[in-house]
């Protein structure tokens, strides 16, 4: 799939000039890799929010989504766009995200802690699906 996407990028360039611009291919490839890596972390963060046992541990998974996930997607867009005004704006979005998202996470965690929500501490292991069936 990745290869076909890169070739599609090369095709659009090649339609203008007859030869394939090698830089365009490399840039598109890097952008796609970055986007896919970002999507992988967003997916992992979502799975974490669904799987982890309590509020505080879920915050960690949510943090994973909006740090590395969003930043890698923005990085991919910047690489794709090149050095233009739009990529400067993407950079500003990335910067504001990296400043505001931990602040928001801290505010949520602090509110829960102040309200008296007790975090789950110690070791946790997901119950075996077969055991759940037996007990039920």
């Amino acid at each position: 799939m990745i290869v076909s996407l890169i070739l599609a990028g090369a095709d659009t360039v090649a339609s203008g000039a007859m030869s394939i611009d090698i830089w365009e291919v490399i840039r598109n490839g890097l952008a796609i890799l970055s986007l896919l890596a970002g999507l992988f972390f967003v997916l992992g963060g979502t799975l974490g929010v669904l799987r982890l046992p309590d509020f505080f541990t879920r915050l960690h998974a949510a943090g994973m989504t909006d740090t590395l996930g969003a930043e890698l997607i923005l990085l991919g867009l910047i690489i794709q766009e090149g050095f233009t005004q739009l990529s400067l704006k993407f950079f500003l979005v990335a910067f504001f995200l990296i400043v505001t998202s931990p602040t928001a996470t801290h505010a949520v965690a602090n509110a829960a802690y102040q309200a008296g929500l007790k975090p789950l501490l110690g070791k946790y292991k997901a119950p075996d699906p077969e055991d759940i069936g037996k007990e039920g």
Partner: protein
Amino acid sequence: MLRFGLVLAIVMVIYWFSLSGYFDHPLLLVLGAISVLLVLGLCQRMKILDEETAPYLNLPKTLTYFVWLFKEIVKANVHVMRAVLSPGLEVSPKMVKIKSSPATEIGKTMFANSITLTPGTVSVEMSEKEILVHALLTEMSDPEGFEEMADRSAWAIGELAENRQAKGS
């Protein structure tokens, strides 16, 4: 104060240009200049023209710090990712108090935000001397691991190591 006002004005002018992209519309340029002056006037009246409003003098250091922080974020992300995707979902949450060594408010903010930004650790409560941290995996709650981050975030905001030790004791 004049110095911070000047820095803030320069940053806002760059910001205005990077968002608008207009270089040859006299009316819009004048309106932009008026906006910058208006914000400066408001900051002056609110008496917040200090290094917290315009922390841009240490920008090279801050950017260097972000490069280091990004590396840490990637490392921690891989850790958390492995824990979340493992079939057994083995996590060991723990609360620890971490000494917050930066002397200034903005340095402390930088440190606490860096902790939260690194997946696997979230700063839950802040006090003058300490930060209460919730860690997803027990091995992430090692206090020594945070010391380097505290030193680096204080450095990034322009605090000198000698000053910090003198103030901390």
